[in-house]
């Protein structure tokens, strides 16, 4: 096949992406440098005013910090709880594994709105979670979960566990059962094998799912809206508020740009981390990258 | 008449030369095997004949037509791939019919031709099976049937028996040979297995590092390999030696670690190249004590360092010291590992070759 003949094959998809993805992104970034001239109107510029406004005012800035904090906490918790689930699915017998897999993935199939509505009932002041906590005397008075940072965190972790589990399963699969048997065969206990064999081999692989969860949380809209009760202001909520309610298009664009940069930085970090790993593997020679015998 | 002609074929991947300036002419109906280790360029050469790769230099001529720049679909060359490459989503019938349907043959003609072809390879009755429902040998025969169904001008086979076990391999060798002779189809066969090459070929093209080492009949290649590499490849031993004196077609050499001069034949060696003494294992005489048996003097002392029982014979590896190693046969099974032996040979059977 001739080199030039391939480009037309790419053309339809490329054109579609350029018109409806690249161009609008460029447009909205330009908008973030325009002057706000009253509701739904903007023009002039370019000016950095919109950015300095947002970054200098603690109240307007808060959304950035809340988003960062939420994403970091959700990413760590999700990775930690998804790891044992992935191990269980990989190591269990075929029928049990399949059942667990269906449970994990089917919760992924449920619309995020529906899941948040479910949590809203459970997390209310007189909801089941508080009933259990009171009955166990963990707390004396109901904890505010719905409409709090904690509530959003719970909902986000629940939302993203399936993504993390799907990402971790192949990494756990790369530790061959023969490796574990070799360890058991030499008399090592299960916990010893876990900490000295499974964990060291898979630990690096957790970085990618962790960053993915971070990025997905940063951009999430449904769960913070439904479980935050208007009190957990993350960037996506600010974007909606500024753009659709206050009609301050330039400021909405500023928040979107900040979110974009944030998520891009996370993906860049992931790319660099995986690149360094690949380079190191290359230096060590091909044997080092091969985990299964 | 010549069916396939390669003229000065070269293939480079970047700076790496996979095939270097290869010339070859194959007669109609001939069975030619390209023999070589992995990395010798044999598969690259085959792919250039099939049109799956284009040569960097040179021409490919099939039946008098220059096809160098033609894509595979315009060459009418049948290929049996190493892993068979059977379409997994199609039945045996559809696999074999594929090339015929592409040629817009009528339904009835397709059915007739597929029937004939499957009969040729002995797979009548398997039409409806899917490839994964067949054994390795059956898959191999479907691949052969698919390749010959289009009545190709040339049949290419790339290590077609690599995935089969040894026993099956022999019977399929005979099968392929039978089909090839019945159809009188010009065949280029690629393998790394010299026994396979000996068993099937009219001529063998021996390749090494992208070069053709020799083109000859199996008998000639075995009897008089042209280089030490070819000699070792067909199972001879090649012992590094030092030439003491040479006189036309014969001379005396010293085997390292030994004082005794031995006779060898061959063209006059060039002074600046290393010399190897090459001899077929069945020509090496092995005795316990130094002496003469059947007119051959066994003078060189050595030690048995390897003993391999092959069923019909025992193959000994004998260390002569200083890196010289010989392979010899021991049909009477007289020797064991670590036995001290003496070896010798008829001067006419030992050749001095240079790389």
């Amino acid at each position: 096949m001739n080199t030039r003949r391939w480009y037309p094959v790419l053309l339809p998809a490329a054109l579609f992406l350029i018109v409806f993805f690249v161009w609008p992104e460029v447009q909205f970034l330009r908008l973030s440098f325009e002057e706000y001239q009253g509701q739904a109107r903007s023009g002039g510029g370019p000016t950095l005013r919109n950015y300095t406004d947002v970054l200098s005012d603690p109240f307007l800035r808060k959304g950035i910090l809340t988003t960062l904090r939420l994403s970091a906490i959700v990413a760590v918790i999700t990775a930690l709880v998804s790891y044992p689930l992935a191990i269980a699915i990989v190591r269990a017998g075929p029928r049990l594994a399949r059942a667990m897999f269906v449970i994990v993935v089917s919760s992924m199939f449920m619309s995020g709105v529906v899941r948040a509505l479910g949590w809203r009932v459970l997390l209310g002041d007189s909801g089941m979670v508080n009933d259990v906590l009171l009955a166990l005397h963990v707390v004396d008075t109901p904890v505010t979960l719905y409409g709090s940072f904690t509530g959003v965190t719970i909902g986000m972790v629940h939302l993203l566990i399936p993504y993390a589990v799907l990402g971790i399963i192949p990494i756990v699969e790369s530790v061959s059962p023969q490796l574990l048997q070799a360890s058991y065969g030499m008399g090592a206990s299960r916990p010893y094998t876990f900490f000295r064999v499974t964990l060291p081999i898979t630990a690096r692989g957790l970085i990618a799912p962790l960053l993915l969860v971070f990025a997905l949380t940063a951009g999430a809209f449904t769960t913070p809206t439904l479980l935050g009760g208007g009190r957990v202001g993350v960037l996506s909520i600010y974007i909606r508020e500024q753009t659709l309610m206050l009609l301050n298009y330039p400021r909405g664009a500023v928040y979107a740009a900040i979110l974009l940069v944030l998520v891009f930085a996370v993906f860049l970090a992931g790319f660099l981390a995986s690149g360094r790993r690949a380079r190191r593997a290359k230096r060590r020679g091909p044997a080092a990258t091969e985990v299964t015998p | 008449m010549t069916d396939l002609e390669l003229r000065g074929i070269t293939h480079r991947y970047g700076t790496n030369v996979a095939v270097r300036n290869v010339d070859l002419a194959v007669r109609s109906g001939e069975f030619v095997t390209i023999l070589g280790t992995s990395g010798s360029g044999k598969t690259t050469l085959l792919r250039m004949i099939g049109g799956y790769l284009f040569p960097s230099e040179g021409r490919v001529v099939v039946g008098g037509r220059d096809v160098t720049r033609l894509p595979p679909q315009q060459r009418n060359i049948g290929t049996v791939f190493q892993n068979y490459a059977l379409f997994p989503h199609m039945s045996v019938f559809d696999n074999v019919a594929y090339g015929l349907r592409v040629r817009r043959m009528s339904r009835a003609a397709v059915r007739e031709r597929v029937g004939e072809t499957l009969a040729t390879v002995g797979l009548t009755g398997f039409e409806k099976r899917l490839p994964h429902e067949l054994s390795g040998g059956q898959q191999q025969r479907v691949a052969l049937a698919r390749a010959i169904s289009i009545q190709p001008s040339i049949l290419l086979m790339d290590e077609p028996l690599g995935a089969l076990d040894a026993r099956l391999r022999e019977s399929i060798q005979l099968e392929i040979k039978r089909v090839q002779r019945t159809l009188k189809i010009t065949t280029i066969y690629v393998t790394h297995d010299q026994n396979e090459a000996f068993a099937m070929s009219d001529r063998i093209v021996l390749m090494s590092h992208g070069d053709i080492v020799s083109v000859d009949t199996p008998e000639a290649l075995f009897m008089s390999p042209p280089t030490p590499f070819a000699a070792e490849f067909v199972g001879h031993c090649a012992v590094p030696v030092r030439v003491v004196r040479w006189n036309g077609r014969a001379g005396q050499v010293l085997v390292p670690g030994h004082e005794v001069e031995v006779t060898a034949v061959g063209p006059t060696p060039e002074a600046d190249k290393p010399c190897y003494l090459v001899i077929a294992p069945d020509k090496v005489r092995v005795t316990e004590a130094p002496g003469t048996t059947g007119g051959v003097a066994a003078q060189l002392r050595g030690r048995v360092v390897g003993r391999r029982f092959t069923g019909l014979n025992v193959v000994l590896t004998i260390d002569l010291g200083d890196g010289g190693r010989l392979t010899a046969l021991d049909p009477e099974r007289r020797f064991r590992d670590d036995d001290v032996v003496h070896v010798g040979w008829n001067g006419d059977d030992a050749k001095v070759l240079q790389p």
Partner: protein
Amino acid sequence: MTTVMQAPPATGDTAVVVPPSRSSARLDRIWRIGFGVIVAALLLFLLAPLVVVILTAFNDRLVAFPPQGWSLESFRNVPGYMFEALWLSVRVAALATVIAMLLAFPATIALVRGEMRGKAALLAFFQSPLQVPAIVQGLALYQLYIALNPWGVALRGSFTGLLIGHVILVFPFILNAMLGRVAAIDTNLELASYGLGAGFLRTTWLVTLPLMRPALIAAGFLAFLVSFDDTSISLFLTQVGGATLPLTLLYTSEQALSPMLYAMSAIVVVFSLVLALVVDRVFGLRTVMSRD
């Protein structure tokens, strides 16, 4: 953990190998039980809100869990606009999936099999929408549609406008699934087809495409779900009266919770569950969801 199992002391050539102690067997049991409990608790955590949604739907008047008074009243109270929203969501998801596939298929073939310069950069370009949060994409398209309005292109609030957003949303998912699959196809199969006389188009149609079928189904399935679940893009591209189902549920819940809301949610849960089970039955969920 190093106390659990020390390397056997080396005493010259004859090292004494210590057999595993009984305490290590007990440790194993505790470890396994602890692990099992954690996994079971996590599975319960995953299932909880789904069960809650379904049971809450059977409340008669209040939204409470466990339900106060059992009734099917809430299902009868689901207003017609909810089903209109459901129908809109299904149409958009299905069409967006099909269009994204039609765009992604040729691109996939070119990106995997094509010989061209800058392939890595092109690949990164085609996957880039995945790195932009949907809410940002929604905002950007919203602003584009506003900008296009004076030019007589009325995409804002239209079905086409919404569809375009969803095609962009699902395109990278479909592309990734297809890329993985095509790269896994043995190139010899395509070469065999060429050798038998078939050209590029025929080979793609008769060999490559059929071999991609499982990936196409998986990709389509995933894309449908992603689109069906979306609120971020639809938020900007629909109006409150004519929103997709997830958004309609979101808007309604922002007003007040009612059992009707949970009845509709329960319908969606059952719809998705049936879809998941059908896929699991026919293709095996695991093969569909895990990438090559």
